[in-house]
């Protein structure tokens, strides 16, 4: 085999002289024909490394070579780069975007037709040739981005978090495409926050705070937690409390909820705790589980956060109520003759987490927006905390906290100004306002950032601030729209610790997500596809349903998600 297509050797990069190193002596190699994963928490230096490899930055020390030349002088035509945010022109059509990139990369006119046909065929975008890029779904945009990066067959393909905000179906398709390209001898660097993707790479480089923690096949790292991962079938009842207790133990490194079970990673050489030691039913089965890359990732970073949420501890107890906290009654939304959501009904009792899942553009965001009052339903109705969304919208708004998929706070204002504003609009004044702000500043450790513009904080802190702004007025209902998109597993665990704690206090949560391990935290899930609610139930029930329909067993939630969508497609075609 030929040598590596790109080599970074002992690279160091600082953005401020004397400041912390964004990258500190990092060496990586990208082999042709292989998928190389680049993973790490936010601010680990992934994007900096990518910018060095693509010649957009120069290293302070060390060397970066692409195809045997220094990256800054390398022939740009051999590097295909797909940036984090789509480098697409939204006002141009699919084919115009491709032509533009072909012009920029100097693709000969004679080769164009054949190349475009192959790329459009490959990405399955042929049907959308003349559609504006801005009108494509998230998954299709990423595919077009990939096609643009591939317009002149590069030797090195660099993808910066291509899976963020993309549903599991599109993500699998994208992965399969890139895998095929790698098979043709291209060296691929795939940067990701999704560890299931990292697990499928041939080689993984794990970065943390600018240092390389692991280099090699992912199985090498996963092997470190071999025999330390267990699954405790506790039943759905009280599993959040059990998880909190487990995470507070010294011998447990990491734990998550999986449907009606707990998944625990133990410290080396320590047996899992007996179910009754946590307060679980003594009959709960404890069985070894297959370790995953994420287990090892959290382990090597020193384990997950403790299980008790200081936020929840200070939260008021939401009173019991007879009626459901969130109620959707035959919600339908049409835009012209396009039906975005069709006859969606569900009821969420107080103190539960309800997940809305579905591919991009399937209607889950529309449903979500109708329930938080951003869209008025064409027909049907919704109730939040007992308030009718048609007649008492303002009361409904007062009783919900909202956290959006993109960072949607005021990036030009300081953290303190954001906190003041959001506590103020929810009617907090005087002492109550000061106390609420002090509380979240302490819980989320925002103290150092108070005078800083919120837009310039690391992603993890932005996400904390967004949650802080949503809960200062202690609402009984929380709406979370892809709350942890692009956030690393450690911050994600901390986030769910808070959510679990709040739910134990009686808060009701409606969440949309593309992370299947996040969906596992839900009490119930509705799967929305082509504007219809195609399945509803507990995570385990959906897995079982998908297993019977597909004739398989032991499915992950992601497998179930895909199987249920395929089953729905088959039914529609048969009809």
């Amino acid at each position, binding site marked *: 085999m030929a040598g590596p297509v790109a080599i970074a050797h002992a690279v160091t990069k600082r953005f401020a002289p004397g400041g912390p190193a964004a990258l500190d002596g990092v060496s990586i190699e990208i082999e042709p024909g292989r998928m190389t994963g680049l993973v790490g928490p936010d601010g680990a230096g992934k994007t900096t490394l990518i910018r060095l490899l693509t010649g957009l930055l120069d290293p302070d020390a060390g060397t970066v070579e692409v195809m045997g030349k220094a990256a800054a002088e390398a022939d740009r035509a051999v590097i295909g780069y797909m940036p984090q945010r789509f480098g697409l022109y939204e006002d141009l059509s699919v084919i115009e975007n491709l032509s533009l990139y072909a012009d920029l990369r100097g693709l000969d006119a004679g080769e164009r037709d054949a190349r475009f046909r192959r790329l459009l065929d490959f990405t399955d975008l042929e049907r959308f040739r003349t559609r504006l890029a801005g009108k494509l779904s998230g998954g299709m945009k990423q595919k077009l981005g990939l096609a643009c990066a591939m317009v002149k067959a590069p030797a090195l393909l660099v993808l910066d978090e291509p899976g963020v905000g993309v549903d599991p179906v599109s993500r699998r398709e994208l992965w399969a495409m890139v895998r095929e390209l790698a098979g043709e001898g291209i060296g691929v660097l795939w940067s990701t926050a999704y560890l299931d993707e990292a697990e499928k790479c041939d080689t993984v480089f794990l970065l943390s705070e600018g240092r390389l923690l692991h280099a090699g096949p992912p199985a090498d790292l996963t092997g470190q937690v071999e025999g330390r991962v267990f699954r405790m079938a506790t039943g759905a009842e009280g599993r959040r409390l059990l998880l909190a207790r487990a995470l507070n133990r010294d011998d447990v490194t990491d734990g998550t909820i999986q449907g009606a079970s707990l998944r625990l990673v133990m410290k080396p050489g320590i047996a899992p705790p007996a179910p009754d030691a946590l307060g679980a039913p003594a009959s709960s089965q404890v069985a070894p589980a297959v370790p995953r890359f994420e287990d090892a990732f959290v382990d090597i970073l020193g384990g997950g956060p403790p299980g008790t949420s200081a936020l929840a501890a200070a939260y008021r107890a939401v009173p019991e109520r007879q009626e459901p906290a969130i109620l959707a009654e035959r919600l339908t939304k049409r835009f012209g003759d396009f039906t975005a959501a069709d006859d969606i009904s569900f009821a969420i009792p107080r103190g539960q987490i309800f997940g809305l899942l579905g591919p991009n553009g399937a209607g889950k965001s529309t449903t979500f927006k109708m329930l938080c009052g951003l869209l008025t339903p064409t027909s049907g109705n919704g109730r939040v905390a007992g308030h009718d969304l048609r007649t008492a919208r303002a009361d409904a708004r007062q009783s919900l906290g909202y956290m959006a998929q993109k960072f949607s706070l005021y990036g030009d204002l300081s953290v303190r100004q954001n906190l003041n504003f959001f506590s103020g*609009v929810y009617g907090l004044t005087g002492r109550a306002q000061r106390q609420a702000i002090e509380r979240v500043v302490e819980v989320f450790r925002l103290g150092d950032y108070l005078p800083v513009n919120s837009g310039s904080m690391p992603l993890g802190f932005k996400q904390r601030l967004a949650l802080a702004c949503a809960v200062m007025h202690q609402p009984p209902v929380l709406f979370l729209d892809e709350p942890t998109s692009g956030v690393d597993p450690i911050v994600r665990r901390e986030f769910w610790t808070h959510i679990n704690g709040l739910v134990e206090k009686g808060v009701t949560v409606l969440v949309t997500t593309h992370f299947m391990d996040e969906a596992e935290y839900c009490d119930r899930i509705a799967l929305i596809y082509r504007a219809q609610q195609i399945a509803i139930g507990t995570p385990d029930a959906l897995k079982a349903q998908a297993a019977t329909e597909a004739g398989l067993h032991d499915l992950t939630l992601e497998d179930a998600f895909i199987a249920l969508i395929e089953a729905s497609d088959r039914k529609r075609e048969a009809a």
Partner: protein
Amino acid sequence: MWGRLRAIIVKEIWAILRDPRARLILVVPPLIQLFVLGFASTLEVKNIDVGVYNRDDGAWSREFVQRLAGSPNIRRIVRIDHPAALREAIDDQRVIAAVVLDQRFSADVAARRPAVIQAIFDGRRSNAAQIVSGYLERIAGELGAEIAPQAARPRSQSAVVHWFNPNLDYLWFTMPALVVIISTLAGLGVTALSVARERELGTFDQLMVSPLRVQEILVGKMVPPILVGLFNGSLYLLLIPTVFGVPLTGSIPLFYLALFFYLLALVGIGMFVSSLAKTQQQAFLGAFLVTVPATLLSGYATPVDNMPAWLQVLAEANPPKHFLIVSEGVFLKAMPAAEVAANTWPLAVIALGTLTASALLFRARME
């Protein structure tokens, strides 16, 4: 409700004041505009060069040329001795006008026959040419009056007195008008960006799920542009009498009253544009689209009375038209309260209309 209102007002003020560059942009460009427009949009023609093709060389023609040269507006007399040279001088814009005195000029004057002076102007600069033509006519008229005080044709003598601007100093006219024009630009711009910015940055949804009522959001967004407008207005009120020497004869409280309603009317238009726009870029272009016709219809450049009837009706709905009257009135002629009120209530009506329209549009475009 007061808590919410206070929160959004404070936030909106921070949104325009937090960035030091943004703070400068609010104040410095309007000041620069005041100075540049104040000195550039002069209505006088000074420092001109006039060509003279004198074919006569008699005493009277020399007298006329000397008077020309003595005029304070004329910088230089260019001697021309050939018809082709005259054409060239105008062609190359060396002179804006050329005077031709024919061979019989002095003889005609001496014989008390009507004498003819031909003047050729550069029509490419029609405005300035017209003004120069006026100067030339006056010089010729003065000369004629001296030669024949009791001329055959009796001339009516008129003594012209210009009220409120006795020396016809153009700054007296332009400065009060510029206050109006410049605050239109700034007021519309700041407002137009405010809602569009939220849409573009994705904070709009966050605002819409909060318990804030539409009217609270709108009031919150109206405060900063009005404060900026009042601040800039005060700055002009201070600078124009002191730096530019234009008298401020009227009542300052009345000026502020009219300014406040003027800003309200502008903010309504700006908010309308902002609710319509999806991005800040669109909002900015939209504000620009409104500013140009608003300026042209204000009566600043051309009197509203000279416009076709249907445009005059449209001009009544144009806020700068009304405030321009107040501004010039307050500066130059100590406009009495009743007159200020007569030109302010249309502003209040326009404000009510534009603010209601923008609130309706805002509601309609919430989704």
